[in-house]
């Protein structure tokens, strides 16, 4: 909806976000408490990437609290007045609406820069305040006017059915008219919000795809270029490397087979994937890989990422450590899969790796993080390097 609360809760508790949205919506329509709850959650749940919740920050801001209190009082008074005028059904809305409004004010006051920018964007599109994209100002004003008139007519109808002994059918009809009025007023705005969300989701997917692609290119093309530089005095080896790389790139660009994608038809279990990594690295780098696999399980996208990161670690060891053998250990446990890649080569100082060396940061660390895993790299100059990769298995069949 507006604050990303449903998404946040779903990420925290593992419940589908749409179910949470539905619960909020039902409560909001029912007696208004869903609205208050939503705003409360907005206050308490920290935004992804932020350490403090809005509520925590708001407590430090007295002005915001005072303002919220004032706002809630005014609204409460207004609702009480309506109640006194005989609009009894409003009474049930007093508390949730007041609390919710107060919360909204606090949210607005204490939101961080990022959150404020987002809020401005959302509110700016509301027809009452700003202008909806793609509509002229006059059209918007006209639409809002029609909506207000229709909703007001519905409200009057509702009040009328309450005072007379009107039938339930009439009351329902009036309520329907109110809803239509609201739809005319806010419909396009809601549509716009939904569209924005979809666009944002697409953008996120695209960013992740880009990162995966960069990691793939690094693992194949950049690694090969590094190998070619190292064997520049051996023309035959240079030719061989270039040929192999060319074949791989062609297969990727024209046949859609990404390098090292662990072809789903051929590699169905983790142990098979390890065997593929082993033969690939041994073939391309002339280094013996001693792999030990304890347990096995079916392949998943996460485990493909784990193997790709592990292969990158093995390739690094083969290309840079100077060691003749690289040990690979992989253990499948009920809750996670761990992979260790170790060499007894020259080692390096992890703090002194220059920033343009993308292997460790992109192909190993970021790749693991993107798929929910972790990477730990220990290296002592002169003693060798060990890379530890851990990928949780949340949906493992136990």
């Amino acid at each position, binding site marked *: 909806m507006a604050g990303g609360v449903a998404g946040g809760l779903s990420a925290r508790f593992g419940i589908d976000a749409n179910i949470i949205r539905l619960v909020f919506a039902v409560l909001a329509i029912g007696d208004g408490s869903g609205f208050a709850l939503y705003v409360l959650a907005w206050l308490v749940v920290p935004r992804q990437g932020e350490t403090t919740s809005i509520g925590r920050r708001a407590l430090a801001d007295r002005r915001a609290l005072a303002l919220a209190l004032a706002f809630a009082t005014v609204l409460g008074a207004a609702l009480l007045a309506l109640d006194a005028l005989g609009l009894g059904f409003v009474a049930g809305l007093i508390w949730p609406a007041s609390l919710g409004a107060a919360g909204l004010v606090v949210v607005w006051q204490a939101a961080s820069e990022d959150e404020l920018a987002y809020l401005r964007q959302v509110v700016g599109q509301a027809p009452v305040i700003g202008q909806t994209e793609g509509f002229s100002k006059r059209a918007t004003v006209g639409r809002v006017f029609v909506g207000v008139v229709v909703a007001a007519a519905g409200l009057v109808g509702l009040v009328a059915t309450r005072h007379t002994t009107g039938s339930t059918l009439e009351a329902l009809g009036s309520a329907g008219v109110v809803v239509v009025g609201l739809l005319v007023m806010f419909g396009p705005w809601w549509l716009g919000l939904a569209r924005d969300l979809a666009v944002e989701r697409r953008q996120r997917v695209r960013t992740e795809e880009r990162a995966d692609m960069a990691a793939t290119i690094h693992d194949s093309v950049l690694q090969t270029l590094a190998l070619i530089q190292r064997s520049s005095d051996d023309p035959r080896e240079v030719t061989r490397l270039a040929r192999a790389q060319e074949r791989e790139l062609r297969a990727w660009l024209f046949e859609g087979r990404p390098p090292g994608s662990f072809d789903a038809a051929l590699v169905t279990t983790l142990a098979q994937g390890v065997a593929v990594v082993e033969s690939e690295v041994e073939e391309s780098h002339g280094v013996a890989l*001693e792999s*030990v696999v*304890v347990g096995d399980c079916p392949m998943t996208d996460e485990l493909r990422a784990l193997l790709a990161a592990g292969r990158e670690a093995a390739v690094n060891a083969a290309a840079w450590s100077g060691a003749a053998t690289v040990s690979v250990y992989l253990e499948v446990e009920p809750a996670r899969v761990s992979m260790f890649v170790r060499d007894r080569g020259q080692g390096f100082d992890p703090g002194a790796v220059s920033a343009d060396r993308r292997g460790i940061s992109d192909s190993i660390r970021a790749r693991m993080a993107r798929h929910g895993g972790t990477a730990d790299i220990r290296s002592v100059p002169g003693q060798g390097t*060990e890379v530890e990769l851990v990928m949780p298995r949340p949906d493992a069949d136990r």
Partner: protein
Amino acid sequence: MSAGRRLRVFLVDDHRLFRSGVRAELGPEVEVVGEADEVAAAIELIGERLPDVVLVDVHMPDGGGQAVIEAVGRLHPEVRFLALSVSDAAEDVIGVIRAGARGYVTKTISGPELTGAIVRVADGDAVFSPRLAGFVLDAFAADPASAPEAAVTFDPELDQLTGREREVLRLIARGYAYKEVATELSISVKTVESHVSAVLRKLQLSSRHQLTRWATERRLL
């Protein structure tokens, strides 16, 4: 260890080239007192020369290393065996260890490493390659007490690994040498050796039928 005296080693392998290769690579701590290229001759010659350690190839006609170890072990339990193989098949590895070998190394092992392994076996310690450590972890992974048919014969002393033994095996499987394992776990090399020897004993004596079943299943993969 027998200080000052060179360890007497016997080679059993059906490939002459490999035997001469091993002879050339072994360090000065050991001397080769004989070699054989088939099972029957090996059993006879070992009984005659009584070496400290026998290096035996797993794969040979007429029963392979396992047959040699079983036959000699009955008559001369003091002779110790170190199995060598190009194969990493679980069934073969578990087979020679259960027959009585005190260790298992692959033929890609370097000369100094092989010499070190021979010295270790002569001392009564066990020699685990990363692959063997992985096999043991795999074979002892499932909780044996949970299998209904195993509950009757389950012996916790023999049929499961302690947490520390698991840690040691994991590090060996990751490619750590005994000394590095000791440093990593802040224990002495001697303690590492005794953990590995305890695991070897369990591997040899455990009646868990899962062990054999596991090895056979592994072969089917």
